[in-house]
């Protein structure tokens, strides 16, 4: 008796997107990173193309972090003293990209100037050869001042700029078009708004194929099942032919996982002094591998051991081509 073929056939395909530009394409990166391209649900190689390997970006802040838990402080040591050192350390941990957060531009924080922000980006570009994600401080008015300086300082480097939102996307769209950068479209874990931000950006003239969807996420234990179902809905629509939801997806894993109580200060009876530092690593790795199953192509992470574990998991899910 022959088994019936029950594999799904999809009409759509997730866009392929390349970040970073080498000298051959007008930038200074030593390599570029390409994500996306799946024509089926994650890792179902028997159904269709699984696309490019998910990439891992590692967080670097524009100044020493405040309140980061001991396992991260221990892993990075004195690399926190400058963004350049930090980025080099992260590349040593296996970062495919650096995710630079201009947190100190926040008006209530360092309130750094556009020029200072641009200098930080140039410092990191000079220190490492991997492509960059650059995130503003999250305050629209301030981001609309600093991002133009950042964008033009890195013209041609093919950055991923974060993040365009429903209420604030025009500046980033203009910068992405003018300086040749890709765009992250943010939505609060809401597939309707994810689609809306994408259409707003395309209406403003930005090419759909240059966008990454960034649905805000939560860590394991903080509604991640909901995050999964939202992401799955979007992915099914994208594979079903909805071009506005066929973009690769970014998940901000490290920041979410290390914010959780379980990662920072696990209160379970079984926790010993010896195992305490492992909880955060496990929490970050578990959150990341879970989100890979939902169809995330770009993970932003923090701890080297978690990065290594996730890399190994990707290797098991996507064995090297024969």
């Amino acid at each position, binding site marked *: 008796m022959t088994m019936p073929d029950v594999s799904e056939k999809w009409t759509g395909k997730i866009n392929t997107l390349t970040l970073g530009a080498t000298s051959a394409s007008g930038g200074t990166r030593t390599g570029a990173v390409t994500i996306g391209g799946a024509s089926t649900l994650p890792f179902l190689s028997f159904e269709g193309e699984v696309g490019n390997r998910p990439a891992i970006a590692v967080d670097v802040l524009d100044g020493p972090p405040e309140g980061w838990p001991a396992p991260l402080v221990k892993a990075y040591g004195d690399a926190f003293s400058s963004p350049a050192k930090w980025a080099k350390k992260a590349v040593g941990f296996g970062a495919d990209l650096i995710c630079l957060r201009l947190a100190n531009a926040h008006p209530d924080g360092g309130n750094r100037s556009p020029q200072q922000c641009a200098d930080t980006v140039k410092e990191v570009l000079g220190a490492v050869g991997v492509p960059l994600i650059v995130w503003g401080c999250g305050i629209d008015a301030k981001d609309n001042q600093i991002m133009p300086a950042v964008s033009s300082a890195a013209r041609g480097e093919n950055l991923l700029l974060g993040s365009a939102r429903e209420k604030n996307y025009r500046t980033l769209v203009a910068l992405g078009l003018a300086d040749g950068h890709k765009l992250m479209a943010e939505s609060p874990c809401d*597939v*309707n*708004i*994810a*689609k*809306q931000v994408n*259409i*707003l950006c*395309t*209406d403003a003239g930005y090419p759909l194929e240059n966008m990454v969807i960034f649905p805000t996420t939560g860590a394991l234990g903080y509604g991640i099942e909901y995050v999964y179902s939202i992401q799955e*809905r*979007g992915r099914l*629509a994208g594979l079903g*032919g*909805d*071009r*506005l*939801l066929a973009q690769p997806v970014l998940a901000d894993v490290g920041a979410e996982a290390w914010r959780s109580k379980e990662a920072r200060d696990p209160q379970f009876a079984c926790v010993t002094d010896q195992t305490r530092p492992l909880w955060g690593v496990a929490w970050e790795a578990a959150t990341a591998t879970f989100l890979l199953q939902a169809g995330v192509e770009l993970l932003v992470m923090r701890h080297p051991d978690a990065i290594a574990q996730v890399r190994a998991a990707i290797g098991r899910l996507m064995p090297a081509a024969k």
Partner: protein
Amino acid sequence: MYVIGERINGMFADVKQAIREKKADVIQELARRQMAAGAWALDVNVGPAVADGKGAMLWLVETIRAVSDAPLAIDTAKWEVMAAVVPQVPGHVILNSSKADPEIAAKYAGLAAEHNGSLIGLTIDAAGVPGNSEKRVELGAQLIATAMEAGLPTDRLFIDPIILPVNVSSKTPVDCLEAIAQIRAFSDPPPHLLLGLSNVSQRCSNRGLINRTYLSMCIAKGLDSAIMDPLDTELINSAITAELLTGKMIYCDSYLEAARSSKQ
């Protein structure tokens, strides 16, 4: 929603005149406007314009092809015109249409299969338009079987359950709704279900309102295609909204625009 634009039809005065006077720009403008407005394919019907149906049809095909590579639905009741024109249509061709009698449908389905085209099959046979939904479903099943035997895949078969004007028959709209749901359930993949939508409101007032209300009702039952007027913006909006409400797409505030942009 697979919209087949109905405007290139010799029944319309502007098209009739354009065919008679070989005014290509009138036809090409209609082709362009219908495609830009949301059509996926274009119906091509010479109508009563000229005596030489075949020559006029070929001229229309050539004229449209100069500006659009959209699938063309060759709309004629004459087999000799169909058989002569179909092999000469570059790109995708839809045969519009065949009756359900097996000996007739087999000929049309064979021609469609031979040219990698699609076929619109009507639930009409020698006895005429059925007076109930059961007969429509029976003829629909017959069309599916005939198409399969002729080597035409079911997803290239459009079944038209035949809508009559609501002022002629108040029962037909309900019969068609039932037939759409039932014929759709027959095979996997199912055939497309199609209507010549504008017929429902022939010689009625409030035509636009009747068309878009009925289209929404039919989409709820599984209709996925119609020969209709894509230049009627409200009608297209209703079709998109009905598809949204039947789970065919993800909502966003600009969903009308999103659906239109997804077509390109």
